[in-house]
């Protein structure tokens, strides 16, 4: 009897394991190539922060930071309110600042379950002694937008994304 019980429950076990794997499959991280093209402004290199915004409109996660001198992070006022409290380690997702007319390409990771589920991606930009744009670029994360080009409103001319 005991043996048959094991045999009977075995498929369930298998199913449970598959189901578990299936779940992790759902929260799988996808990588995207993301290019930021700057306008021809003059002045210092721009600090740009790419963040994931949840459906409630709050910061969920920092995806990338262009600019590696923490001294100036507080210039990106809104994001600083979110990041400044905890100061998670973001060394792996920082790059150099981008100057006027330049472009930068970074690889960002977004969990698959954040696509088509009301999440947004936000590009904030600030330049020393110049303006700060909370939503230089912001758009809904959908399976269409992650392979598109979106015009900026501040220092960014446009952003292009492409799944890797």
């Amino acid at each position, binding site marked *: 009897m005991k043996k048959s019980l094991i045999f009977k429950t075995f498929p369930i076990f298998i199913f449970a394991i598959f189901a578990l794997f299936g779940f992790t499959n759902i929260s799988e991280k996808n990588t995207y190539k993301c290019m930021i093209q700057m306008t021809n402004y003059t002045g210092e290199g721009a600090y740009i922060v790419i963040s994931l915004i949840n459906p409630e409109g709050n910061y969920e996660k920092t995806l990338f930071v262009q600019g590696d001198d923490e001294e100036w992070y507080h210039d990106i006022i809104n994001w600083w309110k979110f990041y400044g409290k905890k100061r998670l380690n973001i060394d792996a997702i920082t790059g150099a600042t981008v100057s006027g007319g330049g472009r930068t*390409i970074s690889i960002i990771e977004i969990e698959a379950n954040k696509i088509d589920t009301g999440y947004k991606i936000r590009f904030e930009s600030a330049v020393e002694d110049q303006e700060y744009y909370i939503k230089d670029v912001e758009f809904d994360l959908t399976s269409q937008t992650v392979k598109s080009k979106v015009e900026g409103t501040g220092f960014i001319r446009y952003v292009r994304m492409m799944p890797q």
Partner: protein
Amino acid sequence: MTISIWRYSHLALAISSFIFIIIASITGIILAFEPISNQLQPYSIGSSNNITLAQTIIVLQEHYEEIISIEVDNNDFVSASVITNDGKNETFYINPLTGEKIGEIIEKAPIFKFATNLHRSLFLKSAGRFFVGLISFILFLIAITGILLIIKRQQGIHRFFSKIVKENFEQYYHIIVGRLTLIPILIVAFTGVYLSLEKFSLLPSHTAEHQIDYENIKTTPKKQIKDFIIFNQVTLKNLRAVEFPFSDDPEDYFNVKLSNKELIINQFTGQILSTIEYPFVKLASHWSLILHTGQGSILWSIILGIVCCSILFFIYSGFLMTLKRRKKSSILKNVYSKDKSEYIILVGSETGNTFDLAKIFYNSLLDLNKTVFISELNKYSSYKKAKHLIIFAATYGKGEPPSNAKNFITLLKKNIPTKEISYAVVGFGSLAYPDFCKYAIDIDKTLQSNMLFKSILDLHKINNQSFEAFKNWSLQWSKNTGIPIQLKEPPKKNKSKKESSFSVESRSLLNTDDTFLIRLRSENKISFMSGDLLSFYPENDPIERLYSIGKIDGDILLSVKKHEFGVCSTYFSKLNKNDIIKASIKRNPDFNFPVWATEVIMIANGTGIAPFLGMINTNKKIKSHLFWGGRNEESIELYHEIIQNSIKKNGTAYFYPAYSRVQEKIYVQHLLKRNSSFIAKTLDKKGAILICGSVAMQKEVIAIIDQICQKINHKPLSYYQNKGQLKMDCY
């Protein structure tokens, strides 16, 4: 004290900005190390900079999934931003031959971050940046006014690099270092201003945009990157950066930045879609940055570091000079008022040095309870009780009056004295300049033309603030006026620190001129040469005595004349063999044997022969002619043996004595006159003239040689002096 407009500007600019210039210089010194430490990293491509862009792209593509960009920085380090095979975006230095990663991107050290920030904005962001730009501009103006001051001092732009007369340490090195670092300072200041203007968008904009006809971008014929013509033409030497296409969309392209232009390249066909030549403003920005920061060149970084150090030195020495000048002129505190004084001393000085001697004279008159009044020439007015007028006047620039004497001659015409005044004029200057004491001569002439001014003593000219010459003048003034003044020699500072012991080797007896030779041997090994000086302080006497040294067989040979009341010469005349004395050697490189000369003429009188005895004894190569003036044939006996030995031993020396107390009175200058053409020729073919002996002899000799030069070579003696062909050590 009045100072000239340029000096005033130079000083005012320096005062208004020095705190910030100090900050910028100190941070500048720190920052000079950044490019040096970067250059010392082993990432430079060096000689492989002539490999082509195509070669590098091919090796990189073998190693990595995707290339995002390649960059060559000012250090010649090649970095690549790539997507690695495990999908990570990384940027690092590569070896462009193999495509391998050779190092992480250098992170700016916190000290450099801090220094950069302080250097360019004082941590005040825009306001600070504006300020630093302004300071940079002020530094530029300081450099320009500095150039004008040097030109003025040197009496013309053509003499910009000729010899500077050393008045004191600060003044001498302020000018010497100033001349050497002039060009780098101008570059640093100018590029600093330029970079600031750029940051504030004050330069003409250079936003030419690429015009690409997106409608007609071709995708065929498709070529491999290794076959792109342009990638095979561009070498890493000219490359600044390449950005790779974002995707394989035909509208995405290669963006190639070269040192002088930017190209857009079709990613399929390798055709050039657009070219922008960089405008001058952009190239100038690039060079400003490189020249200002020293990126990419260890040598230039070191120069920049030195420039920063020298700026700090300028601030130090400049303020020291100013303080001294102020002190010198501000101590013109009078005991008696101008209308109660019988003696009126007026001083004209640009740098304030002449005040030192003037004050010694002033004090010695006070000591005799005379009523004296001292002031600047510009403050000349009427003096009710004046009986004596004594004028000490320096000359500035091309025979012009110093700025505190500019109005004197006009004032003189306005304030005519009511009764007769005796006057004496002393000119101060340097023989190194052609217009020696020109202004004093002018004053003397003007005074002569007025009947009420009675000359009591002829004009005297004093070279390089010589105290001995000044003392001689005062003795003559005493004689003519009957006022027995005693000048107090200014106490010499830093009494010799490192005295050492010398033993007496031999001492001759006094000859008929009361002169004797003394040979000293150093107990320690001290290096010295003929022409250096032996400094000796007699017991309980703060005044240093200096003797010119002749070096013979490693010993010090001095020729000393015993004066009846001379403490020092009497002490020396009583020394015996093996006695020990404490003294020190002062190097005197300006009066050592000129080994570069084609031929050497030595001129001496009396004991001034000592250094030359050493020189003819040692010199085996260069033909030397020693002209010596003494009293009579007995005077020479003291030196006879050494001279004859040297002539026999080396065969280079010739000796011409002149005797002044024999029937046919001949002075050394007469000998020179007889040999005019020889002297002119020697100077002309880069020979040297050395003079050692009394100031009176020096004066006569200089006058004769100057005449000879003017007449035969059509050049003033100062021309040769500035080339270092005239060396003097007179007392």
